[in-house]
């Protein structure tokens, strides 16, 4: 197709193309419901994969779209988890408002942090986010009275969803609830990626100097993205609290920050689906490997990561897209 044959439709339509739903996307979300129909035994795993996927997606918003590398994103996941858990312990276990409590708390803290984060980049940014994360984790550890310290928060109880659906042992309610929340957050993210704001974030990632030269308020954009990402991470943390009725210091740990970064890069950065796909591949692989080999599964996961870098430099989603491109051309 030659560029001269650009049709006479209004230019805005050109930009609408990118935002259009693809068949592969619809298939992806339909496939996300499959655990319920074909693998009921794996609902708990599927639920936690989705939660981690949401967490990774929130990281992608700042890393993949605004180019802010954070090694401290678990701080917001954990803050959301604790806020929701503490509310539940104090007698408010309603799940949907619980999510908002978790998200809002993480978002407010994220707002404060955003003033620091938006000023730095590179290794300094990575280490500052890591440092802030560790400070939050230590604070939570010190506040035994509020958080339960290393034993984890006790007394979390989630009410029935909409007053009717009990969170059952089989994870059926939890699965559908998580899927619905994650999908809603995905829609929000997708919308955002294709909004003027999303375009500005991509601009910052691509070339922040040039953004300044077209008059963009980069820091304000980054702050906003950071707050939204913190909110979504908080929602993911709250989801974990509600569906497992546990909260521990691990939700705030450096380990979790690093894991989610690994999953996101594995799935593919800045491609909308990278987070969810990366979380799914990583966690399912971990589940299978550790089932076969509980002591040495790290070995196989390590090999998987190396293989992905060697063979799929843009992560799994990037690789699939490329593959799709080849197939598409071959089919023509």
């Amino acid at each position: 197709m030659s560029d001269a044959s650009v049709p006479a439709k209004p230019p805005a339509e050109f930009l609408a193309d990118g935002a259009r739903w693809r068949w592969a996307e619809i298939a992806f979300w339909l496939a996300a419901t499959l655990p319920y129909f074909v693998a009921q035994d794996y609902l708990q795993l599927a639920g936690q994969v989705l939660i981690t996927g949401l967490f990774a997606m929130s990281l992608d918003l700042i890393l993949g779209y605004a180019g802010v590398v954070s090694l401290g994103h678990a701080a917001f996941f954990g803050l959301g988890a604790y806020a929701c858990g503490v509310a539940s312990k104090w007698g408010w276990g309603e799940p949907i408002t619980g999510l908002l409590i978790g998200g809002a708390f993480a978002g407010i803290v994220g707002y404060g942090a955003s003033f620091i984060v938006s000023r730095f980049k590179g290794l300094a940014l990575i280490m500052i986010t890591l440092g802030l994360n560790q400070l939050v984790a230590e604070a939570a550890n010190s506040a035994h009275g509020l958080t339960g310290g290393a034993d984890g928060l006790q007394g979390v109880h989630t009410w029935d969803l909409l007053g009717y659906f009990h969170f059952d042992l089989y994870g059926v309610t939890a699965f559908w609830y998580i899927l619905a929340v994650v999908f809603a957050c995905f829609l929000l993210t997708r919308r955002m990626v294709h909004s003027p704001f999303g375009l500005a974030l991509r601009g910052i990632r691509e070339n922040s100097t040039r953004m300044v030269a077209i008059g963009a308020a980069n820091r304000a954009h980054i702050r906003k993205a950071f707050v939204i990402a913190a909110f979504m991470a908080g929602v993911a943390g709250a989801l974990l609290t509600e569906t497992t009725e546990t909260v521990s210091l691990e939700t705030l740990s450096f380990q979790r920050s690093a894991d989610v970064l690994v999953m996101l890069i594995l799935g593919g950065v800045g491609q909308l689906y990278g987070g969810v796909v990366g979380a799914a591949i990583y966690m399912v692989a971990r589940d299978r490997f550790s089932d076969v080999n509980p002591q040495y599964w790290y070995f196989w996961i390590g090999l998987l990561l190396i293989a992905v870098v060697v063979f799929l430099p843009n992560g799994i989603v990037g690789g699939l897209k490329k593959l799709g491109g080849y197939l598409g051309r071959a089919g023509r």
Partner: protein
Amino acid sequence: MKGISIAMAGAAALAASAAFAQTPVKVGMIVDYTGQFADTGNQIDNGYKLYVKQHGDTVAGRKIETIRKDNGGMQPDVAKRLSQEFVVRDKGDIIAGFDLTPNALAAGDVSAEAKKFMVVMNAATSIITTKSPYMTRTSSTTPQLNGALGTWAAKNGIKKVYTLVSDYGPGLDAVAAFTENYTAAGGAIVGAAKFPVATLDFSAFIQAAKDSNPDAIYIWTPGGTQPAAIGKALAERGVDTSKVKILGQDELTGVSAIASMGDLSIGIITAAMYDFSHKSPMNEKFVKDFQDEYKRMPDIFAIGGYDGATAIYKALEKTGGKADGESLIAAAKGMTWESPRGTILIDPETRDIVQTVYIRRVTKVDGKLINVEFDKVDNVKDPVKEKMKAAK
């Protein structure tokens, strides 16, 4: 939804009991096989495996099938999922393992809801067993050991103690239990410090403790790298264990801790429920078998796993192979047996172990460093639950 799920669980249990003669009893071993606490998890499993090896994998006509799952660290959400999956996906019967408190607490919910027998083999916070009425514990609780140590210290001429503990739940429980019993029996605390969980170099803490001139320094640390690092700091700061006593819980002078401390560990006094040097024919056989199998010494984690397996086998024998939570916990309550650590009893009220706490001192015997038992406190119950009972 609730009704349905309970009915389903019930139906599953019914189906299981009808066909139990043919089907194996499934035990889900959920511990940390990887990560910071991997050694603990692996030793628990070693103890468990040894018992199964010694006694065969069939009990009361039913085969024991063990499904191993890696908790991978302090991750209660994972612990909960793994135990749910074990119950739902694997149709498991007995939830076992648990080296860490948060993980055990989270799995306790599953035990309670699914009515599954659960055997905690290490996690030591008192409240764990209150999470599920189907749960027992074959290790010890932190206050049990440290409370006993506090009483013993006050009665044995130690007048001033400086306490130094890891700044998280178990450490705080330990120092609270120690301090309470110690001061109640007339001792004085001359200083107290908490060190961060991730501390790797202890020289500054030890120096501060030494500077307060106590009769003894009480130290509590979880296992891992820390005991060895503390030992090194003690030696380096010139703490003479014949003048300033070092008191602690078993982990402080664990096998690998002593090995890396060398002679520096001589004189450290610890309270423990078990040590491989315990003198009894049963323990000697246990240690020999363990060494043959794993080329290393058993430790408190291994004994927790070993006695956990014992509890499972003996309870199944009593129920004639019935593996539902109600029957097994009923069978387990009040059960008593001879363990390598001595005779122990599952308290029918708290489902925790009632046992002897040994007071040991690291001594060189035939060129080897051993925790030599020189005193003991018999029939120790978990003090926290005693208090809870008294409060009612």
